[in-house]
């Protein structure tokens, strides 16, 4: 087993990986940008190395600086988290070339799956169904011809990308030129690669992904599905498992397809095979494979009882995965809500500021993966994710009830959050019925606004608020003396 691991990421996922390291008795090295000098993941790490200024391109995407930090601190392996360099095959290769272990798949598997066109060819050859699409010459004219052949609506997306960046639904031909330009621009900024592909768009599709785990000894299993259809503009906001759409037969067929997809590229470590499912025909199509830990991995951990972050490390260290497919099962139902710093009543625009209060829920079946605490800052440099609220309960009804309770116990002051929006989704009859598809939010809740007027209790608290000490407004670590960094003075 490793003695020391460097985490090439920030925020909640860095916190998650540090916990996994510490449980396994491994020291954790953080790397951080100037904006994160006081961040929670830095405070939790055994060592921390500054790698650059706030913009990701100058810090968290600086592969050389990160590998250098690993060398200097004596870390034997690098965990990339998700985002940033997690799906960068060149980085994985550079880590290996530096004599370190990359905690993730081989760079060849990342490269194969990272190129969407290449991925579709490999996956189709493995017998996994894919949507009709085009992955040939990357010229606007060729793409436009393909779009016309496939028939509108089509999806234009980055060959290199994921997460909705560089992705556009094009409903009619007149929109195609601007959509391709915008997609290329976003793809270039996000991935440094502006190649596009085009494919058939399936309306009312559900997004159902399968977690897979492959050890270094040829053993590949799936850890069942995650239903991620509740999305706003391609951004997942609520995930759950089991999927209300699947039955045991469809689950088994999709799980087998996911395993086949992983095997087609010689996959090792944790990965996710994303499918779209047509609820009318119950056909499923390969969408893409994410060659890293997902944001929503905790719901799989809760229903399977396995610790995915620890298994990533254990597999990278050469440990065989001991369970056969038939040993694994889903127990109960898990839900995850992503609490974002954004204003749902104001077009979901980002909201930044200092967290005057970050109070997270506690209780049986409630898990919180957060990268921040009271006093921390939400800046415009990074992802607006404040925390993931995750619940586990005996069935879907109980899980929804528990999530509503948990969000009701959450209090975030200092930035606006999407919690009222999440609560309205959870209470919506379409969601209860499991009918939400990937466009449901954009279609049904496009004009969402919260019940706006503060009720009597809120106004009473406002009138009485001077009764409370203004803890939030004071620095949390108020200095004991004139200079907190000078104990010499305060001890005299």
């Amino acid at each position: 087993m490793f003695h020391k691991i460097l985490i090439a990421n920030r925020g909640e996922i860095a916190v998650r990986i540090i916990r996994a390291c510490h449980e396994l008795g491994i020291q954790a090295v953080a790397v951080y940008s100037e904006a994160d000098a006081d961040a929670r993941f830095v405070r939790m790490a055994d060592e921390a190395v500054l790698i650059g200024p706030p913009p990701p391109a100058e810090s968290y995407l600086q592969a050389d600086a990160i590998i250098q930090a690993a060398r200097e601190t004596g870390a034997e392996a690098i965990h990339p988290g998700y985002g940033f360099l997690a799906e960068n095959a060149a980085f994985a290769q550079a880590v290996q070339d530096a004599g370190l272990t990359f905690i993730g798949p081989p760079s060849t598997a990342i490269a194969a799956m990272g190129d969407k066109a290449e991925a579709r060819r490999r996956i189709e050859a493995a017998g996994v169904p894919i949507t009709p699409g085009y992955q040939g010459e990357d010229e606007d004219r060729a793409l436009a011809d393909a779009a016309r052949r496939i028939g509108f609506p089509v999806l234009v997306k980055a060959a290199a990308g994921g997460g909705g960046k560089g992705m556009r639904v094009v409903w009619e031909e007149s929109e195609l030129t601007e959509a391709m330009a915008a997609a290329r621009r976003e793809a270039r900024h996000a991935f440094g690669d502006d190649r596009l592909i085009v494919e058939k768009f399936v309306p009312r599709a559900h997004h159902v992904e399968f977690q897979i785990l492959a050890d270094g000894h040829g053993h590949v299993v799936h850890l069942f599905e995650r239903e991620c259809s509740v999305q706003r503009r391609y951004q997942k906001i609520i995930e759950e498992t089991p999927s209300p759409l699947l039955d045991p037969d469809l689950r088994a067929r999709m799980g087998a397809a996911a395993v086949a997809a992983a095997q087609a590229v010689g996959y090792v470590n944790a990965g996710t095979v994303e499918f779209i499912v047509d609820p009318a025909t119950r056909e499923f199509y390969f969408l893409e494979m994410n060659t890293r830990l997902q944001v929503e991995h905790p719901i799989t951990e809760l229903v399977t009882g396995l610790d995915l972050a620890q298994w990533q490390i254990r597999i990278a260290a050469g440990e065989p995965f001991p369970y056969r497919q038939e040993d694994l099962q889903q127990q109960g139902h898990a839900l995850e809500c992503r609490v974002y710093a954004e204003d749902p009543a104001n077009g979901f625009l980002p909201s930044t500021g200092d967290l005057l209060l970050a109070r997270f829920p506690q209780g049986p079946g409630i898990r919180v993966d957060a990268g921040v605490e009271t006093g921390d800052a939400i800046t415009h440099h990074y992802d607006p994710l404040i925390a993931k609220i995750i619940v586990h309960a005996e069935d879907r009804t109980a899980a929804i009830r528990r999530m509503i309770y948990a969000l009701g116990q959450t209090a975030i002051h200092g930035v606006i959050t999407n919690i009222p929006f999440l609560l309205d989704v959870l209470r919506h009859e379409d969601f209860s019925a499991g009918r939400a598809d990937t466009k449901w939010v954009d279609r049904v809740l496009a004009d969402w606004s919260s019940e706006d007027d503060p009720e009597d209790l809120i106004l009473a608290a406002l009138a009485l608020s001077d009764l409370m000490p203004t803890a939030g407004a004071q620095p949390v670590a108020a200095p004991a003396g004139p200079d907190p960094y000078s104990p010499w003075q305060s001890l005299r």
Partner: protein
Amino acid sequence: MPAYQYNARTYNLTLIPAGEGYRIEVDGRVIEVDAVEPRPEGLRIRLDGRWHTVYVSREGKVQWVSHQGRAFRFEQVAARGRRSRAGGGSGDGQVRSPMPGQVRAVHTTVGDSVDMGQTLMLLEAMKMEIRIQAPCKGVVEAIHAEAGAVVEKDQVIVVLSCGEEESDG
């Protein structure tokens, strides 16, 4: 007697002790609070015989109050005051940044005539790209942010002189 604004509405509050609790008048309407206890975790308030824990945080003139997942951001104002100029509107031709972020590109220059809806700038924050569009047909009078600059929410980034027909829209 403080007054607070939320969503363009002003609440004038009066607090009068009444027995163990308080009588709160909000613009003439009365809320009877049975009892109140400040606690480390929040303000405990008894309304109609039932206790509730409400979370409150203050920062300068801003008072946050939240309960059951809903957070309200109140701004203290002079009593009977009117809403101060804030929020991401465009109104009189002052185009404000709707979010904090970085200017990705500027698509216009001073003196340009622009149509309503024309893209003036591209902003990026938290991996999101936002087009800043002209709120009216008019002429660009000033540009207050260049490509690469970091802007705050509500900061004026472009000033237009609007044609009269759209200016009061």
